[in-house]
Structures are given as C-alpha cells and as structure tokens.
C-alpha cells in the first residue's frame, strides 16, 4: 500500500509510531496529484513547495518529541472558499481573480495548529452556488459529474489526491459530492464549526465540515475543527469534546439500544431503485448490530424547497451585491442569473422562510424525540452524466438534476441537525451510493458511532479507480 492510499487514522498511527514520515506521506500525495489531476481536475492550486517545507518541519517536530496529534503531518485539501493567509481564495470564479487572503480562516488556523499540511485549494462550483462543480470530473467515471459544490474536495479524497479535505455545505454541498464519489462527508450541527474566513453562500444555511475516506477520519478532523469562535455570529458556545469513536475496543460495533428512524415519507420518494435498495440493506446491517428500527414521518416536507430557496436566494444575492453591480460579466451564466433574479425576491418571502425554518426546527425536534438517528439516502440517484439537466422518475415526474441532489440533503441545512454521508456500495454502473445519517443537534458523537459501526461491518474501501 502506498502512503497516499492510507486513511487519515492509519497515516496518523504510522506517523506517531515513526513508521511513516510526513515527508514520505506528503511526497506520495503530491505525486498522486500529479498523476490524477489531468483526469479529475480537483485542484485550483497545488501548494507543493510549501507543503514539502511544512512536511519537513512536521518531521523535525515529531522527531524532536513534539507530536501535535492525529493531523500532524497529514496532507489536506481545502475547498477554495476557505481563506488561507497569503493564498488567493478564488471561489473558482473569475470575480476573485485578484484575491489574496490576508489571514487564515478559523478552520485553516485550527488545522495549522494541529499540524496538518495543506497540499492545495480544491475546486468548488462557482461561489458554491451549484451542485455539479463542472471543472472537476467524478473520480469513478469522468463522464459523470463530481457533484457539488465541494466537488474538488470529494474527488481529491476519493482519488488519493488528499488524505482528507474540507468542504462547505449550504444545501448538501459536502454530502452530495461525498456520496457521488464514494467518500464520507459530514455536515456538522449548525454553528459547531466556525465559518469565520469562509466565503459565504447563505449565512443562515452555511456549514463547514470534513470530507474523508472513513467515518473515523471524519471524527478526527471534526474534533480539531469544532469549538466556539465569536467572529462567527452563529458559532455555538458549546464545550469542546473528543468525538473520536472507539477504534479497536470490542463492542465498538454494538448498536444495542440505538433507535434508528426510517422515514415513511420524503426520503425514499423519487429515489432510484438501486439507491433505495442499497440504503435499506445498510439499515438492515444497523439492525443486525443491535439497532432498533423506528418508522418516522418527516414533517412539513412540502415546504422544504421553498424554505431553502427563500433563505438562500436573497442571502446569496445580498453577499454578491457589490460585484454583481461592478463586474457581472465575470460570473458564470448559471450563477449570474440566480444572483440577478434574487434581487426580485421580497423581504416578505425571506421572512416567511425564516419563520418556516423556526417551525421546522420545532417539528423535527418532536420527531427526534423518538429516535437517535434517522437513516436515509444522501441523494436520490448516483452521479448524473455531464450535461444532463433533468431526471425522469418512473411516475413521469421530471426533476432538475440539481433539485434532485438537494432534495434529501437540504432538510439538515434548514434544521441545522448534523448529517453524515457514508458510502454503502455501488450501482450496476459502478457508481457510488451514499447513506445519510441525521442526528440530534450536537449529536455528532452518536452519528459518528453509528456510521463507524456500519463501516466495521464492511471491507475496507478502495480508492476510486483513476489513473
């Protein structure tokens, strides 16, 4: 096994035991980037020189007895909405051609303090306002979309071009590309991970979180990222906790007593049969591990899309107010039209969406009294073909591809509950399928425990077959 193939947890263990040097690991990942990047286009910028220098520094520190923890010396890719001091934050947009961040975002600073090594900035759908990330190809099939908006981060992790990555998620932008590329994506509880220094799409709905190869890896990263920062007004003042699951202890896969909600409505409607079957099989595994399955009814589903759009569209337009007036021609056509149309959405519509959000939080809290997690598909179908605009469901309903990808992930953005996408197999075309686990607010520990237990029932996943 080459170092670039290691999970974060395995790489961390080998580095801690000095069986692997950060320099070897970073060189291996940089070589892998060189090999796969022409095919997948995951990166905006590769910071090879700085990464090698940082790896040497990490090696020196560790050799000197100062091991910072599991991220020390481990290569990370950051979605290019996340500020890193001295680097441009392009948002994959010509609008940001001359940008340069003057300071680290909170998450970049926390990764820096933990000793992680930045190998590059990854592509996003322009300003995170889309679900495909057209610059990047799916790691499993280049004729398919990467998903978005954190497409570059998910593809980099799936292809071995980063040991882990960060993404952002406003309507599913961590979980959608994670599901479509066969990796793990975690949207934490709203406010758990500070967004200071991260370009916003919609303040009400934005989250930052990890994209990794395993649930255990996601827990390692989240532990380093979580914690209050007053510079993000939504940041929760909750105590820092160690979210790492029990790695090797017997019983780590025992889910006795855990109540897993299985939705009667919404989450399995207009879902591809292979996706539905794979998720139900995975839920069956959870039951075999001791979990009790509980049927749940998802409330207010008719108002999900309206609430999501009512919040996101005006907020995105507000964020871009100045540049939409000064350099509108620099936006991509799909993003520009949404920003312009957002000028015509009134304050009444926006406030109605904010009030509907309050209702949804209350109704979801009632559902979550009955269960510990809810299990559902992450997205209703595997990766669409590049250029495919719509999907036609067996009952004749035609749905936009982006609308379909957001449909099952947006509820967690509106309600703020944590949501984890875990790979649960492939369809007959060989494309990855994701299961979504949704938890209680600040219920990441349970979410990660359930996801980790499921993973322990499965063979180790291979990297995507690219290069």
């Amino acid at each position, binding site marked *: 096994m080459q170092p670039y193939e290691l999970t974060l947890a395995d790489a961390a263990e080998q580095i801690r035991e000095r069986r692997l040097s950060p320099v070897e690991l970073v060189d291996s990942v940089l070589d892998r980037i060189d090999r796969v990047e022409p095919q997948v286009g995951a990166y905006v910028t590769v910071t090879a020189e700085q990464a090698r220098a*940082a*790896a040497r*520094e*990490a090696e020196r520190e560790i050799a000197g007895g100062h091991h*910072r923890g599991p991220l020390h*010396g481990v290569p*990370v890719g*950051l979605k290019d909405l996340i500020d890193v*001091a001295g680097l441009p934050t392009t948002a994959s947009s010509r609008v940001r051609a001359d940008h340069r961040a003057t300071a*680290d975002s*909170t998450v*970049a*600073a*926390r*990764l*820096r*303090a933990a*000793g*992680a*090594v*930045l190998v590059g900035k990854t592509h996003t759908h322009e300003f995170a306002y889309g679900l495909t990330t057209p610059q990047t190809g799916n790691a499993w099939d280049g004729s398919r979309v990467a998903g978005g908006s954190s497409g570059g981060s998910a593809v980099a992790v799936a292809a071995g071009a980063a040991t882990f990555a960060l993404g952002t998620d406003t309507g599913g932008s961590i979980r959608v590309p994670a599901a479509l590329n066969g990796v793990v994506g975690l949207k934490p509880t709203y406010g758990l991970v500070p967004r*200071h220094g991260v370009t916003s799409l919609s*303040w*009400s709905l934005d989250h930052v979180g990890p994209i990794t190869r395993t649930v255990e890896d996601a827990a390692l990263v989240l532990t380093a990222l*979580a*914690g*209050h*920062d*007053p*510079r993000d*007004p939504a940041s929760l*003042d909750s*105590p*820092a906790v160690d979210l790492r699951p029990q790695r090797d202890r017997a019983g780590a896969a025992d889910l006795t007593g855990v109540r897993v909600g299985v939705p009667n409505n919404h989450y399995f409607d207009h879902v591809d049969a292979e996706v539905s079957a794979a998720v139900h099989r995975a839920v069956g595994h959870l039951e075999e591990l001791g979990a009790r399955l509980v049927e749940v009814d998802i409330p207010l589903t*008719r*108002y999900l*899309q*309206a*609430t999501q*759009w*009512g919040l996101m569209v005006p907020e995105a337009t507000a964020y871009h107010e100045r540049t939409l*007036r000064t350099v509108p021609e620099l936006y991509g056509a799909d993003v520009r*039209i*949404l920003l*312009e*149309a957002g*000028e*015509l*959405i009134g304050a009444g*519509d926006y*406030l*109605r*969406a*904010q*009030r*509907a*959000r*309050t*209702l949804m*939080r209350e109704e979801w809290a009632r559902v979550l009294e009955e269960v510990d997690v809810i299990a559902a598909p992450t997205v209703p179908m595997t990766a669409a073909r590049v250029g495919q605009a719509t999907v036609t469901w067996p009952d004749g309903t035609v749905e936009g591809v982006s609308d379909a990808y957001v449909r099952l992930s947006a509820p967690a953005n509106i309600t703020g509950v944590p949501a984890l996408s875990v790979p649960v197999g492939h369809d007959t075309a060989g494309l990855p399928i994701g299961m979504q686990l949704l938890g209680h607010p600040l219920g990441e520990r349970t979410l990660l425990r359930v996801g980790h237990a499921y993973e322990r029932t499965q063979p180790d996943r291979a990297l995507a077959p690219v290069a």
Partner: protein
Amino acid sequence: MSSPALTPPEAARWAALAGLPLPDDRHAEVAATADHIRSVVAVLRELDLGDTPPASAYRATQENAGRTREHPGPRNAGTRNANTQEVEQNDAAV
C-alpha cells in the same frame, strides 16, 4: 398561491429599483428565473405562521470579535475555548 407572472419590463424595473440596472438582453431571462423562484417560495404562504418568529442568529449579548467591531470588549471571549486561542497561532503547517 400563484401570483401574476413578471413581464420582462417589470423585472427590469424591479431590478432597477433594487439598484441593479439590467442590460436589455437580460430582462426576459431574469423575469423567467425570478418567476420560477417566486413560484417555489410562494408555497410558504399556505402556512399559518401565527406568532412564529423568524429564526435568527442575532444576540445582543454576544461579543463580536470580528474586524467590524468598533469598541473592543473584554478579552474573556478568547478564553472560553482553547480552540479560540489556536486561531491566533500561525506557526505550523497549513
């Protein structure tokens, strides 16, 4: 719940009122896109929201340590969580 469709000249006028002059060749496309968005969000008018307040992140008591703060507050905000102090450290690898 449907509301009258925006005509392209109306879309242009509304955008202009919002301070966004639209080139002539964008009026029709913006009108159509805005109509679609408005038709989606109009569904919320069905809800009886009663006394339900908007979800909001605003808290008068929360210190804003960001760059817009005019009067620096007490330094205790940075001690509430060890991670907050890590933000100030730029001595490692990322």
